[in-house]
């Protein structure tokens, strides 16, 4: 049962937990009552850990395919509490909120998914439906950068993606380990190693803000029009429905107008320091 009060979460139970890396887990959540509300790739939910707090977390899976999936990195009190949850534990969930990745709009052309660190989680929710309807897109490429090989997420599944003939996967790390045989360096640098037709391409970018700025610049340089580049922004959020004012970014509310924005809409705002 959804409360008529938008601040009140619904109760969900942890169904499964997958450990992705030393500090990151994926939670599979099922509602204690009712159904999982319909959501789209790129949207987010507010997750509440008993007595600790509530934070925005993107969906990393798809609607209608099993539990609600969220991939969380433990960085502070709330995310740590969420990462400690075990199967059977209860948490509060409200949402979905925000704008989705514009997958329908990208159909018919090439699709570039550019992820930095945890940014792979929200982009997984864009990659899966694109692969499920592979024939609707031209070339698809996943460019993914992490701090070190140990931080790479979705290990097994990434193996499957890499072995597909119809998906180009480029993985790079900032700091290699002795066993690492892949590339080292920043993600935007991989754009020039990617096969795509810029005039027909869409790019979805998610990661730290600096990484997204550099990626956008590289995409523009490669000839992708600004209106076809999409970034997913993060701002402090307390309500997620445009009443607490915390997530303002110039004239926009990131919780409502974002988190996914087309680059042409926010390029000027991104250039203003401390906006």
């Amino acid at each position, binding site marked *: 049962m959804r*409360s008529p009060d938008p601040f*009140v979460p619904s109760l969900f139970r942890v169904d499964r937990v997958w450990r992705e890396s030393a500090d990151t887990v994926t939670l599979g959540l099922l509602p204690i009552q009712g159904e999982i509300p319909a959501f789209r790739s790129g949207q987010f939910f507010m997750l509440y850990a008993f007595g600790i707090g*509530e934070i925005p977390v993107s969906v990393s899976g798809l609607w209608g395919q099993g539990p609600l999936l969220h991939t969380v990195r433990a960085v502070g009190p709330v995310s740590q509490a969420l990462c400690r949850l075990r199967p059977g534990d209860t948490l*509060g969930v409200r949402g979905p909120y925000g704008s989705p990745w514009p997958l329908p709009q990208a159909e018919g052309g090439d699709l570039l998914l550019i992820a930095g660190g945890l940014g792979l989680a929200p982009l997984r929710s864009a990659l899966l439906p694109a692969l499920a309807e592979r024939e609707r897109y031209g070339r698809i490429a996943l460019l993914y950068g992490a701090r070190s090989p140990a931080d790479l997420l979705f290990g097994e599944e990434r193996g499957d993606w890499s072995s597909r003939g119809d998906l180009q996967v480029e993985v790079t790390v900032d700091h290699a380990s002795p066993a690492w045989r892949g590339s080292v360096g920043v993600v935007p640098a991989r754009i020039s190693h990617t096969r795509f037709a810029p005039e027909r391409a869409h790019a979805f970018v998610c990661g730290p803000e600096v990484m997204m700025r550099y990626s956008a610049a590289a995409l523009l340089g490669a000839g992708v029009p600004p209106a076809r580049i999409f970034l997913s922004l993060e*701002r402090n959020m307390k309500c997620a429905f445009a009443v607490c004012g*915390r997530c303002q970014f110039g*004239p926009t509310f990131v919780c409502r107008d974002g988190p996914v924005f087309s680059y042409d809409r926010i390029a000027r705002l991104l250039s203003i320091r401390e906006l």
Partner: protein
Amino acid sequence: MGYHRTREDRPLPECHAPTAGEAIIDREGLQALLDALSARGFSVIGPRVREEAIVYAPLRNVSDLPEGWTDRQDGGHYRLERRGDRALFGYAVGPHSWKQFLFPPRQRIWRAERTEAGFDLLEEPPPSERWAFLGVRACELRALAIQDRVFLGGSLPDRSYAERRRELFVVALQCGEPSGTCFCVSMGAGPKASSGFDLALTEMIAPNSHRFLVEVGSRAGEEILAAIPHRPASEADRREAEAVLDSTASRMGRTLDTRGIRELLQDHPEHPRWEEVATRCLACANCTMVCPTCFCSTVEDHTALTGESAERTRLWDSCFTVDFSYLHGGSVRKEIRSRYRQWMTHKLSTWFDQFGSSGCVGCGRCITWCPVGIDITEEVRAIRSSLSEPTHA
């Protein structure tokens, strides 16, 4: 009883809200109004003197009002002074605004209790009070309308605000005493209240008469007026009431040129004036607390010592705090320059993009209550004039 008429002396059309049915009441009539509101279950909130300021607090009697008081206001300055007469509303707005009742500074939003299986959520009961606000000026009515759009205009209306707002009875005041920091005329927000009230009063005081012109703005207002002693307003009464507003409009303490203001601020985020104002601003957040339209909030979580229950509290917050824009690793707006810019640009510019109007009603509170007297009208003037000056080679 039951006297109503429109400006054209025709009976009120049955199907819509009445437009105007003007009447005259005296001090006893005002007391009867307070009594009639109480009798209908409203808690009346109105201006009172507390700690050397005029604040909004519960009241029952006309004698609770700040009779014979006025205020002197300027940048960073507020002082109550005696008037030479027995006016009940002879001052401008103080540090309080009505938002504290509809959007409480601190409210529990829900509780959670541990159970065998995990925890349960307990929602808050709907508010028990029904408020009647007495003495709401035009600028404040505009602020109310602005907060209505913020809290109720989106796809998910704020439930707590909606519940409090729904029951509200508004007795407006046609403003007779602007302060030194008022600029509602510039913002198109006053001094005349023309809608958004149930009843509106104009205080008219002369050496041997003290009366109020009453305008009706709703069926509920009409019903209350019918229940209190009054007489029809004459043409002379109306002219006198209009003169009160004309005089107020001509005595604004400040002005703000709003031409092209949306672009003026959004197009100049790197203007040196932001740097300059940051050297004076203490980031104390006073301006946001007193502002009747500022709506930002935060949430706090508390757990009982036993760990068996927890609660979430929503509190007023301010874009002037460092924490406001905190993201893991640091805040977005570290410098005061960025925070002042956020505040003023939001009020006067990006508010148009978000809610279709200005976020400032020209009430002057932020100027009066700024400990260092920073003046929003002056800040706009400084940016505007620097841009119109010819550049030196």
